């Protein structure tokens, strides 16, 4: 204990190693996509291949350098590769994850419920999630106003053919 204290006092405590696990995601996606892309053009004429082979080979080369670089850092114990599976339940419960899921659900439901109704529900649910359930009526009001502004701008003014639902039919019927 006293040894540790002495080290801290002397400012010699080893800094925590940087976890580089996340940094592998984009190179891994890039490499997988490049290999898939190349597989789709193997039997194509040279005009379809030239760009992909040029760009793809550079990308694979750079990614290889990255993997070697990180591999060496891990071997020299300058970094760590650690995926904390125990943290997953905690991450899933965060408002951020819930918001990402709700955003995806918005895309799924907009085709069935129409733009305006889905947008009102999406706004309200997201605002409630992000503000941890505070002032629900106020948020419902803001959600409705914002969605109606969206309707006025995108559908009424610029005539965008967004999916139509009950609210759009009511508005058109009323007019």
């Amino acid at each position, binding site marked *: 204990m006293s040894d540790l204290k002495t080290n801290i006092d002397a400012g010699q405590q080893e800094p925590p190693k940087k976890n580089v696990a996340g940094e592998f995601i*984009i190179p891994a*996606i890039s490499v997988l996509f490049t290999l898939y*892309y190349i597989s*789709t053009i193997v039997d194509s*004429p040279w005009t379809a291949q030239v*760009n992909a082979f040029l*760009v793809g080979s550079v990308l694979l080369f750079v990614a290889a350098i990255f993997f070697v670089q990180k591999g060496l850092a891990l071997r020299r114990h300058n970094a760590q590769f650690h995926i904390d599976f125990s943290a997953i339940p905690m991450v899933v419960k965060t408002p951020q994850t819930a918001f990402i899921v709700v955003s995806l659900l918005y895309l799924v439901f907009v085709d069935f419920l129409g733009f305006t109704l889905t947008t009102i529900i999406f706004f309200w649910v997201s*605002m409630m999630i992000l503000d941890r359930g505070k002032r629900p009526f106020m948020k419902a009001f803001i959600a409705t106003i914002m969605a109606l502004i969206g309707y006025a701008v995108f559908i009424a003014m610029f005539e965008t053919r967004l*999916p139509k639902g009950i609210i759009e039919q009511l508005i058109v019927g009323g007019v």
Partner: protein
Amino acid sequence: MKMDVNTAFFIDLFFHQVGLWWVVIPSIFLGLIVGAIPGFSAANTIIVLLPFTFLMNVEVGLVFMIALYCASRLGAGIPAILVNIPGTAGAAATPLDGYPMAKQGLGQRALSISFVSSIIGGLLTTAIALVTMPWLARVGFYMHSVEMVVVMLFGISLIASVAAKDTIKGLIAGFFGLMIGSIGADHVYATPRGTMGFLELYDGVPLIPALVGLFAISEAFMVIETGSFMAKDRVQTVQNANWSETIKGVRITLSRWWHVTWTSLIGLVIGVIPGAGAAIASFVAYQQSRTFSKTPEAYGTGHVEGLIAPEAANNGVTAGTLIPLMVLGIPGGATAAIMMVVMQYQGVPTGPRLFMERPDLGYGVFMAMFVTYLLMALTILPMSRYMSRVTLVSTTYMSPIIIAFTLVGSFVPREYLFDMYLAFGFGIIGYIARKTGYHVAAILIGVILGPLLEQYMLRALKMSDGDPLVLFSSPLGNTLWLVLILTLALPAFLKKHRQKAGSRS
């Protein structure tokens, strides 16, 4: 109609266009709105309003389209600065330094700098276009596929600048973007490549969903963590902001008048080349600005010149794209093509006949552009103080609004629900990239410029039966190659030179 084109003619034309303020000012505000919402552009708004344009007198119709076009260019920079969401691809380089300024509580100053550099860039290039139209129109004749390959490489070399802090990660992001940009049917035999079976990707990756996803959606996910668009200690600065920040922005931009001038000229020249456009101009201008800067290491952290360069350049493009249409009858971009339709419908000729038969219209288009930029200085600049307050709105409200409205924006150009899913997919990629230290701008540069590079390179190679030496076969092309190499080598040389000078002193 025979008219003498002299100084009195231009003065008369100027006051005549000022008299059309009642068309210009509403068009400016409409242009700002469509420019600021990703997915909406001047071109598709003009298409929606085309029936009204046909009903208008041809002159009023053209003035309406010009004002809308110029204002949408300027409007695209507003969300790029305040919330890191470029309204169009032409403003994709603006948040590189504009957004860091807003995060530091300097949103009002950044807007002011952006507006003044856009307005000066627009005014200057319009004035130059008025005088040098016949000569500038020839630029398009000299720029063939080979030369265009080098111009594209100028833009793509920005990846290296963006990647300055971590070269390997920056290059991975940039080349990943270039690979994504290669998705779609090939340009010669229409062989589908990397489409994952989606018919919607046969035409390539649509630009707006990529832009919306990488910038807007990933930003909306990111800011939830902080709860605010800017550092907490800067909130007070924005709350207490007064006119002095706007004036400071004007003063800063005017003191860099030379920077505004040469970057807007880059925009003008690139704008003249049919098919090039604002995105390439702003990337090239940003890259060149960084190359010749005394403080290149400060780019990406809220550097004033890093904001001036793309904004001056993309407004320089506006005058440039109209030159081929007016002088040669060849539209240089989508908006110019729609103007040509309106002119043909109204029986007005384009090309050399326009200046012989209706010089008031030919020169009038550029004068209308000049007047629009002047009126924008009076109407938009004072708004910077109030616009910057957007950054104070809690992310509880802003994040859902950004997600919903930008997803709609990605739907607008093609009206496919698929594009909304695509934007979401890009949003997740952008979010992971940001969280793990990869630059989303590098990915976007690849997605935007990749297909153009491939298109021009294939054309050049087809002409030479696949001989790559064709890329070094033209004197202008070789000169551009030399300039490109010098541009890439110059930062290292200047750095060494400054270090030497520093150690001596």
